[in-house]
């Protein structure tokens, strides 16, 4: 529960930052109506992934482009590099990233390059290369750091949690739009936020957000919760279960 409240604060922070961004953006940025097909996703024992549809209506008479960023809970991540030592490959150096989104996907109605320029994409954190990765210790630039952040992005893409290509945003009629996002089975639980931007002539003219909660449910969630909230109790439970299972097995096979 504690982490959840924390995440909520982070979300509030993100919205706050967005507001500041909206204020400082030169063009008059208006609210954009968007919503998600699901606001809750339950990870149960046979969870194989999920699909979420974001839909909304653009402002004005039509035209313009849509960019959507859907990202998930920020987590500290460590990237390690192996090197050969006395013939053996060992982890030799590491960079800790204080926050990296557990999930990050972009949807766009065209090529990102054509819709927004590099500076704007950077400011709105749109695209894999503009994800905010904060390394602990403060080293932020340089070729060495880039190798570690590249490795992080590569691994997340391989795990199906980040995407190199944006999902296509489709228009229905002149005003309605929709885009599909896929969550793989290993999606981390937490609070997710979708931010949609309407872009006209290379400027963001309207923005809107929608939230989504992914949580574990069922027996697995209870086991996971106990393991982390009361670790000693969980340990005792594990040992008692093992003793009982061993005794049971012996009793069953003694008869046969």
């Amino acid at each position, binding site marked *: 529960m504690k982490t959840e409240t924390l995440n909520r604060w982070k979300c509030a922070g993100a919205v706050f930052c967005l507001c500041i961004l909206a204020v400082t953006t030169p063009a008059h940025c208006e609210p954009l109506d968007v919503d998600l097909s699901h606001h809750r996703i339950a990870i149960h024992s046979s969870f194989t992934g999920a699909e979420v549809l974001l839909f909304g209506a653009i402002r004005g008479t039509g035209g313009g482009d849509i960019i959507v960023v859907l990202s998930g809970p920020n987590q500290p991540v460590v990237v390690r590099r192996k090197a050969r030592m006395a013939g*053996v490959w060992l*982890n030799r150096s590491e960079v800790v990233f204080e926050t990296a989104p557990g999930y990050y996907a972009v949807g766009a109605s065209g090529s990102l390059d054509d819709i927004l320029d590099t500076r704007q994409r950077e400011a709105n954190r749109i695209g894999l290369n503009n994800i905010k990765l904060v390394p602990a210790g403060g080293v932020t630039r340089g070729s060495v750091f880039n190798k570690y952040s590249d490795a992080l992005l590569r*691994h997340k893409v391989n795990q199906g949690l980040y995407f190199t290509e944006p999902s296509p945003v489709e228009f229905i009629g002149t005003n309605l739009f929709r885009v599909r996002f896929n969550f793989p089975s290993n999606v981390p639980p937490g609070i997710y936020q979708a931010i949609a931007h309407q872009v006209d002539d290379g400027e963001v003219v309207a923005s809107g957000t929608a939230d989504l909660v992914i949580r574990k449910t069922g027996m697995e969630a209870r086991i996971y919760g106990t393991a982390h909230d009361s670790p000693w109790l969980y340990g005792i439970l594990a040992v008692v279960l*093992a003793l009982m*299972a*061993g005794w049971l*097995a012996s009793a069953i096979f003694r008869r046969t």
Partner: protein
Amino acid sequence: MSVSIVLLLGMGAGVGFLSGMFGVGGGFLMTPLLILIGVPPPVAVATEANQITASSVSGFLAHWRRGNVDLKMGFVLVIFGAIGSGLGVWLFRKLRSTGHIDEFISLTFVLFLGVVGTLMAIESGRSIIRRRRGGRRERMHVHYWVHGLPYKMRFRKSKLYISALVPAGIGLCVGIMSAIMGVGGGFILIPAMIYILGMPTAMVVGTSLFQIIFVTANSTLLHAATNQTVDILLALILLLGAVVGAQFGTRVGARLRGDELRILLALLVILVCIKFAYDLLATPVDVYSTAPFIG
């Protein structure tokens, strides 16, 4: 992480079959297999300790009914085993926070499996050759430096009068190994009890299982409390397969000769060792790895 239940049951049954056949816990096979199918090494190690507790209980009860347990020896091993596994879990946490735990697990596996496998292969190979030639048997009891140590203690059931330091040292080492490698330590404990302590073979398996129950239970508890890496569901699934497999393994094992069994086990141990060594020595596909950061 999602892994097929059928695969886990099959692995449990396969390892259970071998452990029933050879009379070992099977942790030294199961932990590497779990790592191989993608279970993070720290979770594999802690969960396997939990599973071994269960399988050792059922094995111990069978030996207890036949009166093949030296409780006094068992308690000396247990007390120092508990201290050892406490040390091991502490070391495990240190290594985990510096990011070296995976390599350390692999290195200790290579070292122990390599030494034990080679020694066992040589011993059982000689025994087979001797039997073919029809030579005489070796002496049961060998006296050397360990029997000159102080703090002597009498172990009636094992017909031994030796220094308590020897079982204490063995218990300590096996405790540390159990915590770090996720093994019961049977493949070290059994040779140590036969060759170093000189215990009668009939007492060895039951007594080692007695010690393994306590040491792995202690490791499980400490891993759960300090590292949160025990997966009860995974342990229970593995156990289910292992219990059934072990029953069949015991029957097949009863048909083979002792030295034939030992040389097969030695070859298996060496094979696992080679796999670990290869992974450490071969150039990795990706020199970078990502993991959640634990502060």
